[in-house]
């Protein structure tokens, strides 16, 4: 049976908050509202990370997902027509449900296949935030240096790609302007 302790109370309140907002993402009609619930989900996940003594990951979760990715999604939503009120009658309703069921099945299968005994939370009851950044930094620039550098190169390519895409559009725009003048 689940032990009644402060840790468990906090864990279950945060995880239920996360789950409820995650379910709401799919249930509300308005895309903006589902985005709002998505941000709440991110915040809840950050809370779960804090419970696992992973303060850096939690802050990164807040910073990157709740602060930045959500902005990206905001812009994406702004570009979708009729996003504001009602997207319940979407033609992707049935495929969406199918994909959801498949995904849930995969998740459940994965959870049952793998052994998560190390992470059962027994020895994590006391929070311990000592030097997480230092150890993460040492790992990133030591053991996982190649992955780290590859990721940074990937980001650089993404940046340059974005700039080049904008540039080409700009030149097209200028050409069209010139044509307009000639006409």
């Amino acid at each position: 049976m689940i032990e009644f302790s402060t840790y468990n109370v906090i864990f279950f309140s945060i995880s239920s908050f996360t789950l409820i907002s995650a379910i709401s993402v799919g249930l509300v009609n308005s895309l903006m509202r589902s985005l709002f619930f998505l941000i709440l989900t991110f915040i809840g996940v950050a809370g779960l990370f804090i419970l696992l003594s992973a303060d850096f990951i939690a802050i990164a979760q807040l910073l990157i997902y709740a602060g930045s990715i959500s902005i990206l999604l905001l812009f994406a939503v702004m570009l979708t027509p009729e996003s504001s009120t009602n997207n319940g009658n979407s033609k992707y309703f049935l495929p969406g449900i199918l994909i959801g069921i498949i995904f849930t099945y995969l998740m459940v299968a994965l959870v049952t296949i793998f052994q998560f005994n190390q992470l059962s939370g027994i020895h994590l009851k006391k929070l311990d935030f000592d030097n997480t950044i230092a150890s993460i930094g040492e790992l990133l620039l030591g053991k996982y240096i190649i992955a780290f550098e590859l990721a940074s190169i990937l980001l650089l390519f993404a940046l340059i790609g974005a700039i080049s895409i904008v540039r080409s559009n700009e030149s097209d725009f200028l050409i069209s302007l010139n044509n307009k003048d000639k006409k």
Partner: protein
Amino acid sequence: MSLIFSFIPYIKRLIVLILILFGLAVGFILSKALFDLSIYSNAVFDFMIDKSSYNVAYFSSSLIGALGIISFIGLVLLVGSWVERRMIAKFQIRVGPNRVGIFGLLQPIADAIKLMQKEVLVPAVADKLLFFIAPVAIFIPAILAWAPIPWGPNMTYLNINIGILYIFAVSSLTVPIIFFAGWSSMNHYALLGSMRTVAMMVSYEIPISLSLLSVVIITGTLNLTEIVLWQSSNSIWLGLLIPFSLFTFFFSSTAEINRTPNDIAEAESEIVAGYHIEYSGMKAGLFMAVELGNAVLLGALVTSLFLNGWFLFGLENYIPPYIIFIAKTVAIYIVLIWLRATLPRFRLDQLMNFAWKMLIPVSIINFFMIAIETTIITNLDSSKYIIYLFAIINIAVFVGLIILWSKIFKIDKFSPEKIAPIFAQKIGGIKAMEGTKSVD
């Protein structure tokens, strides 16, 4: 009798003077008791640990600390708005609020009462849920961000290793909230304002993070308390050692918190009030309060990151350290008010150009320079004197980079000769107008 009446204007000032003297005397007597406020929450902890479990004691003592910070924020919101209005009135050769209470000190309370009485209008087409949540939610990051601020030697509420990142992450949460506020109003002005906010905040987070990285790399820690202690142990203010980071951080933060000259998100003359145009009553008041609180938070951050926190040339041994900290914070806040009272506003594209074409490249250069300096400092034993040398070099480079940038982008300062008027030699000089003399 008339003599007594003629003194009435001075009696008010006399009363205030007596009150101040009284307050100083009481403060002197209590200075032992109030020197370190952390003893009170510790006393609560010690009291509770005997009666109940560790968690309950921890929770109750932290509640005391949180209450202290929240009451400070509440006080700042009230006094700050009065200070701002009075200061701007002084700048503008006006009197300012002086009717409610002595020197109008109760004006903020009267304002708050008025705002609470007003009806909160909700637009018929608004997204009611988001419209309701946004002004409440925007208060949460504004208060949470105060947690890791180091007030004094033992007075850091949340002494975490990732203090800077924490503040950065929590304050980045305001962006979607502001966007929701603007979008849910279903008003073009509000949407314009929130789009401007999002564009500006996304751009200005980069120079802010670069300038903070310089601080982190030179002190070797993300903990705000340790940054303050590093400055005092090396006996230099980081603002002098890395002036460009201070400038970048301060300027970019004014963009983040919507203060002049970067208040384009709620540019009054263009988009009226920006994202909170549709809010009325206390909801609009909440947005204003958050803005003011963020301005003071910026003062506290600049103080602890760049101005050596609670240290002030040994005075911290005689005055309670948090008083020094608050004084520095208020000084930065007054600089913000000064800027607001004097400067016009940039345009959105000018601000974006400034961020991407000036602040970010120069911040990167500055960052590399500081990285090199840090390696030299850490590899040398007599680091103290070399730090002063680096401070001079950095200030020189700071000035040089600004001049270089203005040369590259050809921003000449207007010389007085160019302002000299051109006078018409002859009236009606354009061909079409020649010959027309008068119409009878």
